[in-house]
C-alpha cells in the first residue's frame, strides 16, 4: 500500500497535535461501547436498579455475575502467562489496601445513593449524554459529595 506524502503529513500532524491526542481515541471507543452496552442492557435504568433491590428480576444480577466471571478468567490468564500490556510493560494489578471500616461505611453510603437515584457514576454520565437533563442535578450532587470527602478525609475512620 502506498502512502501519499499528503497522508503522511496528516498523520504526523495528528500525532503531534496535543489538542487532538490520537492516544485518546481508543479510550473514547472503549467508553462508547460501554455507554451502548449499559444503555441497551438497561443497567442505566432507575427501574432496573429498583427491581434488582426488590429481588424481582435476575437480569442485573446476571450482568454483574457474568462480567465478574469474565474478569476473573481474564485476570487469571494475565497472571498465569505474565502477559504484557499494549506498550510491552508487564501487567501489574495493584491490590486494594486492607481495611474494613472505609469499605463498609463508604459502601453503605454509596448504596443508599445508588438505590435512591438509580445510577452509579458511569450511568450518571451516560444518562446525561442520552439527554436526561435532570441527571445533571445528580452529577452536581456527586461532585459535591466527592468534594466533601476531600474536605473531611482526614477526620474519617479509614
Amino acid at each position, binding site marked *: 500500500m502506498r502512502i501519499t506524502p499528503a497522508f503522511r503529513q496528516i498523520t504526523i500532524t495528528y500525532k503531534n497535535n496535543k489538542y487532538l*491526542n490520537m*492516544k485518546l*481515541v481508543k*479510550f473514547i471507543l*472503549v*467508553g*462508547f461501547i460501554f*455507554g*451502548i*452496552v*449499559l444503555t441497551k442492557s*438497561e443497567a442505566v*435504568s*432507575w427501574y*432496573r436498579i429498583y*427491581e434488582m*433491590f426488590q429481588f*424481582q428480576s435476575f437480569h442485573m444480577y446476571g450482568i454483574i455475575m*457474568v*462480567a465478574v466471571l*469474565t474478569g476473573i478468567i*481474564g485476570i487469571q490468564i494475565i497472571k498465569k502467562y505474565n502477559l504484557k*500490556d499494549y506498550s510491552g*510493560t508487564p*501487567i501489574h494489578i495493584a491490590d*486494594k489496601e*486492607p481495611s474494613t471500616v*472505609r*469499605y463498609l*461505611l*463508604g*459502601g*453503605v*453510603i*454509596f*448504596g*443508599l*445513593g445508588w*438505590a435512591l437515584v438509580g445510577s452509579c*457514576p458511569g450511568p450518571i*454520565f451516560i*444518562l446525561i*449524554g*442520552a*439527554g*436526561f*437533563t435532570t*441527571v445533571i*442535578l445528580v*452529577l452536581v*450532587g*456527586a*461532585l*459535591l*459529595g*466527592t*468534594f*466533601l*470527602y*476531600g474536605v473531611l478525609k482526614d477526620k474519617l475512620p479509614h
Partner: protein
Amino acid sequence: MELIYHIWSWYISGFIIGLIMLSLIYFGKHFGMSSNLRTLCSLAGAGKKIAFFNFDWKSQRWNLAVVAGAMLGGFVATHYLSDPSNVSINPKTIAQLQTMNIDAPQGKLMPDALFSNAVFESPKAIMILIIGGILIGFGSRYAGGCTSGHAISGLSNLQLPSLIAVIGFFIGGLIMAHFILPLIV
C-alpha cells in the same frame, strides 16, 4: 435487527462489560468511573485548597476520554437503538411503584416522577436528586471505588476489600429501596 433494538441479554452484556474492563487493563489502565468525579473537582480548581484534589489531572485524561465516549454511546443507544419494548420490568414491580405514584416504564429508561423536566419546578424533587448524588460521590470516594472499580474490577481480581464494599453497596441499597424510598417519594 430485533437483537439490537430489544433489551440486550444479561449474558452478552455482562460478557462485554468484562471485556471492557480487561481492555482497559491491556491499555495499561484500570476500569473505574468514580475517579472521574475527583478529576473533575481537581480540574475545577479544588486542588488549590484541598490536598486530596492536588494532583496532575492531565494524567487522568484517558479516563475523561472514556467518559466522553460513554456519553456519546448513551446518546446513540437511546436515540437510534431503542424501541417501545424496552424496560419491560416485572409487573409486580410496576404495581409496587404505582402505590408510590411512580409511573410505569412503557419504554422509558427513567420514571417521569423523578426525572422529567418538571423536577426543576419542585424543590423536593431537586433535593432528592442532589442528595442522591452527594451520597454516591461521597460514598464512592470513601469506599475507594464504585460499581465499576469494586464490583467489577475488584471482585474480578478476588479482592476482599471489594467484596466488603459490594456488601456495603447492597446493605445501603436494600435499606433505601425497602425502607426510605417509600417514605420520601
